[in-house]
């Protein structure tokens, strides 16, 4: 029986290929709303969706908020600075308070890996992980998967290269889980100091030379490099990083004409990707943002219900 048989979305590691495909399929009709003049559907009327962000984010938080509002849910944003967490209220108590005022879905971002899982155990509301430490960022990976499927027509069998700081990137982790489950061939490439051990065991090819990793790539997903990592000595200089691992016009020219260039944003233009490359016709960076809203609409719908093929109406 199809459906998301779970209360929460904590990571793509836990999902089956069927569940991921159901989310992507459900995002299709949601994506249509961008073509409409009237961007409102009554589906989640009476539901309350709370975003609880312990880390700054404009993109992901806004995307969830728009998704909730277009489906007629009431969306409430709580950021650390305005909540009682600064008064010493415990993390779980904060979440229980949010639930007690009627939240049906809590979307959480936290610097600690595992914080969403702890929250999910403490509340009856559905919990969506919007990024936890270097662990997972499942909705970003889902929108990346959706973008690939939308532009390439499939995911299985594609060569997908992920470039950058794989060690600290929750986007990379979630993408690796999702892509391998759906049958893509994943290559990761980046400086050895920013590469976690054990990726080969997940069926991922690990590379340290970008040009080698780009050969035969159908999709290139460029990660944002956290500039403060350089200060910690994980790579010698921004300039060197850009020369060795930056995507520029010359490197793009060696990719196939129908290859896909992605970036979760916001990009450090001139560092991991040049402005010229970001604006290449093969770049779907702007489309990814719209796809993110569609995927999050689909998730809100599925987590407040399920996804079942039956007709109660007639």
């Amino acid at each position, binding site marked *: 029986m199809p459906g998301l048989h779970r209360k929460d979305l904590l990571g793509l590691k836990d999902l089956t290929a069927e569940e991921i495909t159901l989310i992507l399929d459900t995002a299709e009709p*949601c994506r249509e709303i961008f073509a409409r003049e009237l961007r*409102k559907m009554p589906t989640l009327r009476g539901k309350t969706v709370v975003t609880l962000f312990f880390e700054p984010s404009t993109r992901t938080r806004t995307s969830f908020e728009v998704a909730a509002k277009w489906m007629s849910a009431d969306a409430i944003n709580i950021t650390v600075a305005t909540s009682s967490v600064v008064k010493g209220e415990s993390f779980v108590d904060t979440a229980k308070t949010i639930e007690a005022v009627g939240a049906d879905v809590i979307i959480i971002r936290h610097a600690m890996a595992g914080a969403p899982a702890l929250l999910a155990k403490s509340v009856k509301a559905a919990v969506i992980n919007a990024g936890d430490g270097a662990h997972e960022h499942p909705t970003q990976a889902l929108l990346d998967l959706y973008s690939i499927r939308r532009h390439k027509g499939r995911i299985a069998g594609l060569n997908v290269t992920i470039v950058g700081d794989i060690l600290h990137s929750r986007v990379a982790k979630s993408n690796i889980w999702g892509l391998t489950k759906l049958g893509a061939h994943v290559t990761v490439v980046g400086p050895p100091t920013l590469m976690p051990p054990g990726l080969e065991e997940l069926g991922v090819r690990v590379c340290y030379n970008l040009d080698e990793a780009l050969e035969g790539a159908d999709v290139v997903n460029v990660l944002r490099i956290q500039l403060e990592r350089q200060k910690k000595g994980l790579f010698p200089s921004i300039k060197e990083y850009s020369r060795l691992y930056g995507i520029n016009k010359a490197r793009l020219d060696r990719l196939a004409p129908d290859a896909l260039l992605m970036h979760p944003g916001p990009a450090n233009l001139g560092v991991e990707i040049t402005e010229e490359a970001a604006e290449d016709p093969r770049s779907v960076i702007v489309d990814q943002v719209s796809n993110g809203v569609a995927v999050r609409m689909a998730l809100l719908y599925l987590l407040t219900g399920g*996804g079942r*093929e039956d007709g109660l109406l007639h």
Partner: protein
Amino acid sequence: MVMGEIKALVLDEDGIRRALYRLSHEIAERNKGVENLILVGIRTRGVPLARRLAEMIRQHENIEVPVGVLDITFYRDDLSLIASQPVVHKTEIPMNITGKTIVLVDDVLFTGRTVRAALDALMDLGRPKMIQLAVLADRGHRELPIRADYVGKNIPTSLREVVHVQLRETDPEERVVIVERE
């Protein structure tokens, strides 16, 4: 499709064809032509019915009437009442519906709640000049003030009975039957 014991065969293949043929003429007659018309089938079985009506209209009016597909799942009024939600499919309306006459097409008219949801979904897509409703079978028991403009067959039923429309595009057989609810 889950089937109980068949109590009555209401329409066979020829019966369905004749009923649709009459509907296709009624639609053209009522609207004094089909120039400004769009046929919109409600998923699932309204869609092949809308396509068949368009083909019949093309044969006698010599005009291609556009056919759209409407998925009403996001507009259902029972989403909060059921444990898990139905799979959603795409809505595909080929053109701007503002100013057009829409003929909504569905297989069975029962409580009227599907049609209510379809009306809301259409209104969110534009402002049609008029919306009409065509159904292959009307089995009664309305829960809302909704009626069909074109009815293939009126089928008096009890609430213990279910009307199944089966079409060659979606099912192994082509017929309309009444079965006892299990």
